[in-house]
């Protein structure tokens, strides 16, 4: 009897579902979990909440670490998107082409489309591939690149961890990417991949040494490996930046960093006119997406490190006076008032501009269109004003802006190199590293050490 009743109940539910449209079905299916989730959350917050908050307050460093890791992982993907878009557009312009201009304003949606595309592709592995290694390789490469962001200071007080071996940590993590590439090359069961992986191993090992040696000069100057301290040592004006004290180191570092990031002219590992895609030949879908993102994140982090070590990190090029130092809490408390004020100003500005546009534009502009344009323009102007205010008021905001501007300038240089230069052959590449960069880095080291000793005395 019970079973029959259950069947009756289930079948009537199914009949009900059948009669609904898809949207209605979704709504019906999602409401119970939503209500249940809300109830559970409220209960948990009420019962466990205070204890949890106390725990967090007691272990603030742990919370900080956790938040930093999440923030960094969240930072990498938009960064990669921006750099991909930059690469497409900038290289196109250098090729006298236009680049993507259909998806989104000025083609900016192209990165997102690429990201979605790699998510939607079929995920397969070639026959004979070593599956655990094959799957882990892109993960290792991506994580190795992303973990280095933990030590880079983006703004005063805004860094993941202020490790006092920050630079060493950076190079150690950066070196792990070789492991990922080798894994990919070997596990793909493909001669092209093998060649690519071996080339990458040789190249990255060769260029690690000049890279680290050129950074040792900085360590001699600052006396610490902490990147935060390095940036603080360059605060003041642009003339305090280490690029003027270590120009040779900067050059060596930049060239070695190009090789570390596998960028043209040192992109033998993915030379797509010889070994198809090198180590990534057999990868498709999200696995390839990871390699892709890892490469662009790598570009960003070497730019970030160049900026941190040689160009003053988040410091401004000239002594920046901080006229107003708003206590953040006060600003948030006045939040609603600010929002109302902002909207009112925007609408007022829209009115004025609409009148102006109608006067000068004439019949071509209908009233709604003029209003809309006026609103956009005034809104943009107000946002710019707001951002400017933040820039002046909050030193962390200004720090981020300077840091990103400088880092992206170097990213632009990397992209520029890719558009312009052909590839260096593998033996020329390694010959250059061992015969030219390494002695130059040692020379720089000796000169720096001598200068430090003599000037201190």
């Amino acid at each position, binding site marked *: 009897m019970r079973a029959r009743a259950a069947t009756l109940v289930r079948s009537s539910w199914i009949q009900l579902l059948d009669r609904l449209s898809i949207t209605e079905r979704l709504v019906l299916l999602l409401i119970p979990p939503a209500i249940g989730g809300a109830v559970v959350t409220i209960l948990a917050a009420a019962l466990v909440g205070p204890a949890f908050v106390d725990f967090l307050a007691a272990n603030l460093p742990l919370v900080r670490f956790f938040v930093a890791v999440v923030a960094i992982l969240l930072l990498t993907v938009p960064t990669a998107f921006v750099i991909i878009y930059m690469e497409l557009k900038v290289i196109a312009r250098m090729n006298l082409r236009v680049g993507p201009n259909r998806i989104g304003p000025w083609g900016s949606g192209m990165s997102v489309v690429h990201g979605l595309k790699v998510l939607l592709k079929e995920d397969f592995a070639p026959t004979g591939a070593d599956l655990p290694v094959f799957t882990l390789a892109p993960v290792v490469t991506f994580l190795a690149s992303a973990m280095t962001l933990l030590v880079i200071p983006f703004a005063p007080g805004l860094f993941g961890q202020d490790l006092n071996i920050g630079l060493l940590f950076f190079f150690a993590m950066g070196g792990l990417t070789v492991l990922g590439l080798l894994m990919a090359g070997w596990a793909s069961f493909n001669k092209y991949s093998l060649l690519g992986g071996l080339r990458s191993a040789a190249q990255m090992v060769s260029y690690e040494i000049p890279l680290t040696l050129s950074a040792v000069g900085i360590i001699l100057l600052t006396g610490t490996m902490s990147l935060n301290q390095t940036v603080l040592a360059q605060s003041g004006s642009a003339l305090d930046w280490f690029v003027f004290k270590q120009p040779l180191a900067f050059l060596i570092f930049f060239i070695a960093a190009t090789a570390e990031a596998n960028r043209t*002219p040192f992109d033998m590992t993915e030379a797509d*006119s010889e070994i198809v895609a090198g180590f990534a030949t057999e990868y498709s879908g999200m696995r390839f997406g990871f390699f892709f993102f890892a490469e662009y994140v790598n570009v960003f982090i070497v730019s970030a490190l160049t900026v941190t070590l040689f160009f003053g990190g988040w410091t401004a090029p000239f002594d920046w006076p901080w006229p107003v130092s708003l206590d953040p809490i006060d600003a948030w408390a006045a939040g609603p008032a600010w929002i109302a004020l902002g909207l009112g100003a925007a609408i007022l500005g829209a009115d004025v501009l609409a009148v102006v546009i109608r006067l000068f534009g004439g019949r071509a502009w209908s009233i709604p269109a003029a209003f809309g344009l006026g609103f956009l323009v005034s809104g943009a102007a107000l946002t710019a004003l707001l951002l400017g205010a933040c820039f002046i008021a909050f030193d962390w905001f200004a720090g981020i802006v300077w840091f990103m501007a400088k880092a992206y300038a170097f990213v632009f240089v990397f992209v520029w190199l890719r558009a312009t230069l052909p590839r260096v052959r593998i033996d020329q590449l390694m010959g250059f590293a061992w015969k030219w960069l390494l002695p130059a880095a040692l020379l720089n080291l000796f000169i720096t050490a001598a200068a430090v000793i003599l000037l201190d005395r």
Partner: protein
Amino acid sequence: MPRRADRTRQPGPAEALPAAGPRPSLDDPRVMLDRQAGALFEEIPPYPARTEREAEFYTPTEGELFLNIGPHHPATHGVMRLVVKLSGERVVDVDPVLGYLHRGVEKICENSDYYHVIDQVDPLEYVSSLFQEWAAVLAFEKLMEVEVPQRAEYIRVLSAELLRVQSHTLYMGFLALDLGGLTPILYSFIERDEIVEMLAALTGARMLFNYFRVGGVNGDLNHEFMSRLGDWMSRAGKQAEANAALLNENEIFVRRMRGVGVLDRATALGYGVTGGNLRASGVPFDLRRVHPYSVYPQLDFNVPTRQEGDSLARYLIRVDEIRESIRIIDQCLHQMPDGPIMAPRLPRLLRPKPGRAWGAVEGPRGMLGVYAVSDGTDQPFRFRIHDPSFLNLEVVPHLLPGNLLADTMAIVASLDPVMGGIDK
């Protein structure tokens, strides 16, 4: 409509050589079969070696691996397969495998009348199709003893030299692309687009022109062509110099090409290499000078020759040739006579008397020759095309061993092969 030559017969007699045998046994040492992996590897090649050279090549020694730079590849200038025997990164031997683009043009031309042949012969070296037309038309004119009027000759030279400039510019772009530079190819395509639009105004088509005819050309110069040509000529020299400087002054590019793939004079002559590749090895063999045809005796131009024979020399020769071609175009424009553009009193249906004729022109890649045999009907009895890239590619197994894998692309690209012509 069935033609007389569509004679399909019962199968011919048994072949002269034995056919490919049964699959070799697993104990055959030439078969590379990984017993642990089971059927994961297929032996290379999957049949026993047919010739001495094949056996020698496909027997790897310790530490050698075969890499298939396969027909689907970003940089093989078309569908060509290079089976490369590598020892680490160093190339030990190369076996080019052709035929992926074989379209049976010679057989089709045996079933086409003499006008259709010109159409069929265009897509051979699709990059510079007027030269194939010219060779065919030259052979046919020798067969039929037709005198081509001077104006038509000048127009032929003009359009052909324009196409030579375009072909060399594209060559530079593809060479840079194979070495990793993404930008010069786009600049080359800008140049090519200008020239090809010009020729479209003259001939009606941008790529496969179908313009030359037995006895002349299809259409006279028109206003649009002349105005585009004038525009182009006013900046052609400087643009060519700028494009060449993009690569010449690039240290990485020069380093990768200098001393790579040195082809010495004796080998080049022995292999029948012609064109810029031969002139880069020190042999001043240019058909326009040593066996002149058309109005080249009346034009003043140099034949650039270099002695080094490496990839850089082959590249620089073509840069020089662009300059020379611009000079020739200039002289053609000044010397262009008035007159008809087709030989008078040619029959509508060309039916040459039985005989044989060979005509050869100097194309951008070398000597393009056509051997035509006529049997008195309106279709050629045998239409043989000799393509320069065919023999240019044959030196690759001679040039490649000892170089690195990365040089493969530099060498093959510097020889400028076009697979359409090689595979016919």
